[in-house]
């Protein structure tokens, strides 16, 4: 149980405890290694272990409904990201892709994906010209069995097997962040825009986007928590300037800002979850949660490195990793400024629709 977890339900506490055990027993001791040299076999073994506690089918229909699924996704990813944000993003990408697969191929047996025997990856894409879908960063893309391409707000998803001749993959060598997710750059040639695609509703496109953004917000929250904990520990041990670091006011302010970041990130994530459960649509809330949480993750990681001084910059101490991962949280799947513009773009529509419905705008919230 950590900061801000006081109001968790029994069910949520149980989820957190289960994932926490996985993190401590299996992930913590290899987290640095899979960031530095992410061996596909190692990642596969971890993935299967994560599947055994239900983390690879959080949003699946069989997992107990959307409410439990969302909590699993957000709390589980947060806990995994505490040790390895890259691996958490791999799990997230798989879950979003699996959600799309379940929705579009209802009769297919997807049990192997939930058990961790097969892996899926979600490719947030852009349409390049008329003939190609392109995804700059596909977490989990390099070793996935199936990649699901989707251009947000478009009416199609494109699930493709790894062996599909239309698919082109390029391993991203030594990216700044998300290394443990074995990310790839991916292209899918579709002679015509709709070829090989499965039609989906705009609501489902929004659902996919919400899941991805909420998951990223949770990963970011995990980074902030880690930054606070390691910095706090170090500040209590390291003597500098005539006192332990924690005795210096400015350092305590940095730590307090991290704690503030956790509270606000969690509140934003919870708000987005609530909106999603009540209304079924929560895109602006999910975007806001992702932007807020990733900003705090970034500033916390930067201050975390600063508190550690020279040691924070060295690989062996693990703090610099948080800074690199946080940056990718901020800029994936697209530029933060684009997300902000989207939020603003959605807002006037909501205002207009609420006005049309005669609702009191002041009571509705955002």
């Amino acid at each position, binding site marked *: 149980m950590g900061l801000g977890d006081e109001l968790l339900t029994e069910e949520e506490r149980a989820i957190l405890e289960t994932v926490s055990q996985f993190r401590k027993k299996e992930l913590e001791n290899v987290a640095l290694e899979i960031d530095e040299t992410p061996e596909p076999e190692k990642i596969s073994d971890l993935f299967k272990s994560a599947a055994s506690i239900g983390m690879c089918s959080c949003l699946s229909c069989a997992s107990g409904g959307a409410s439990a699924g969302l909590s699993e996704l957000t709390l589980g990813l947060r806990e995994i990201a505490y040790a390895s944000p890259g691996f958490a993003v791999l799990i997230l990408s798989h879950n979003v892709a699996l959600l799309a697969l379940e929705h579009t191929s209802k009769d297919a047996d997807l049990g192997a994906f939930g058990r961790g025997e097969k892996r899926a990856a979600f490719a*947030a894409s*852009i349409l*390049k*010209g008329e003939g190609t879908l392109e*995804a*700059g*960063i596909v977490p989990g893309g390099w070793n996935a069995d199936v990649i699901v391409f989707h251009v947000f707000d478009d009416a199609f998803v494109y699930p493709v097997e790894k062996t599909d001749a239309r698919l082109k993959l390029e391993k*991203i*060598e*030594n*990216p*700044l962040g998300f290394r443990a997710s074995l990310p790839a*750059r991916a292209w899918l040639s579709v002679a015509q825009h709709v070829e090989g695609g499965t039609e989906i509703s705009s609501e489902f496109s929004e659902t996919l986007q919400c899941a991805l953004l909420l998951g990223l917000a949770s990963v970011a929250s995990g980074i902030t928590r880690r930054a606070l904990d390691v910095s706090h520990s170090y500040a209590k041990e*390291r*003597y*500098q*300037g*005539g006192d332990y670091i924690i005795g210096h006011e*400015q350092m305590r302010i940095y730590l307090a800002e991290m704690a503030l970041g956790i509270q606000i990130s969690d509140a934003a994530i919870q708000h987005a979850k609530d909106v999603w459960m009540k209304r079924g649509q929560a895109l602006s809330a999910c975007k806001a949660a992702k932007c807020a949480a990733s900003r705090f993750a*970034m500033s916390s990681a*930067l201050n975390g*490195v*600063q508190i550690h*001084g*020279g040691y*924070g*910059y*060295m*690989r*062996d101490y693990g703090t*610099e990793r948080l*800074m*690199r991962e946080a*940056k990718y949280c*901020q*800029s*994936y*799947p*697209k*530029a*933060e*400024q*684009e997300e902000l*513009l989207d939020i603003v773009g959605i807002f006037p529509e909501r205002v207009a629709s609420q006005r049309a419905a005669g609702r009191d705008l002041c009571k509705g919230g955002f």
Partner: protein
Amino acid sequence: MEIPSGEIRLAGERILSEFPMLEHFNRSNSKAFENIAKTVKACADYGRRHILPVALRLDEKLKDEHDYFPWELVRAALPYRLLSLIIPKIVGGQGGLAVLFSLAMEELCAYCPGVGNIIGAHALGIAPLLVCGSITYWEKILREIVCEEKKGNPVLMAAAVTEPSAGTDVEEPNFLKTARLTMSAKKVKGGYVLNGRKCFISNGSVAKYIVLCSATDKSRPLETWTTFIIQKGMDGFTVPRVEIKMGQRVCPAAELSFEDCFVPEENVLSFEGTGMQPGTLLLLAASRAPVGAIATGIARGAYEWFLRWANKSRNGVKPASRQRVQMALAEMKTRIQVSRWTYLNAAMSFDSSMGRAMSSTLLRSLGLIPDSIRTSEIYLNLFNSRLGKRVSGSILSLYAREDEITRALAFASLAKAVGGDTAMHVTSLALEQLGSDICEERLWIEKAFRDAKLTQIYEGTNQLNMLTLFAAEIGKNLRVEMGKLKERHV
């Protein structure tokens, strides 16, 4: 390497267009300005021809082979005379001071801050010899660096101050009093015996000479902080570890270990106990502006790659046509320009005091003495004697007054902090704008982002630099400042 005069003139025009503050240099001392233009041009040529083609590959290689050192790249710098930029002319160097060196750093670091830091750390090792006025070591070490540079053999230097349990503490007098030091220098007959460790020492594993600070009495560190010259290969001195860094990987950060390492008396710079005041403080006043310039160079490099990205068409649209990208570019440009002003202001402040000392008649007249005499044992022993050290120390303090150095240190600390924050902000902003676009420019900007963070940490964390600024500029004059405010408010 001879640079055609036309190219020097063009480089000078470019510098003046970007640094209008330097116009007075051009007017008052056109020769000095020409030297600056020549140096910046040399750095740009070296960067384009030698650093640019290998920087990314080297960074990648060093991720796994962190104790590899690119000697071939350092050798390629020798024709450009980059190892003798701040070495006085009387021993054959370029005679540059903080302004020249800062501009050189910005230029190099726009290509690769790791390579820039090799040159920077080397200069950091040279600087104590200059600011302590150690004429003997000018002749012994600096002359060797120049001679070997001309022959194509790089001789590198380093400065070792940070200790495993004392980083910030050893860069500030008040903090040093309570520092938990692990390194000690015990006085013995004919010299000192060093024991302990230094860490994160840039160039530490490749330098031939290392200027090292240690207390001779750990219970009175401030009063006994002393500067020694260590030579590679001394008995008891080893380099057990080279760190694996997030960025600036080309420049090795090494741990240095000393076990009963005997250092002869004549290897003490100035006198025992002068390591912090004036030693380290003078050194920081000299070096923090160039660190601000290193950071500015990183920001400029990231800006230039980002500009290139913004002008490439994607799906028929150039990112630069988007207002958010235009605003980001404008913000980057603004921050870089502000950062330049602050480091240049600090460098000029330092040069105005130390520059007078370095160009004093007395020091220049030493250059008239024939080399055969200046390299003789009698001459070297004279300047390394107590009397010789006192005389050279007096000359320096005559020109470089304490209040001027304090002010220069305050400006330098400001420049360093502003530069570090600029580098982080600009690289971070550029990456945010890129989103998920994987492209060549991204590789450079990601590298710059990793490189940038170190500029907020080394040479004293930015927080320490802010405290130094407060102490030197605000705290010291608090009563006076408050008095002025009172008058204005009444």
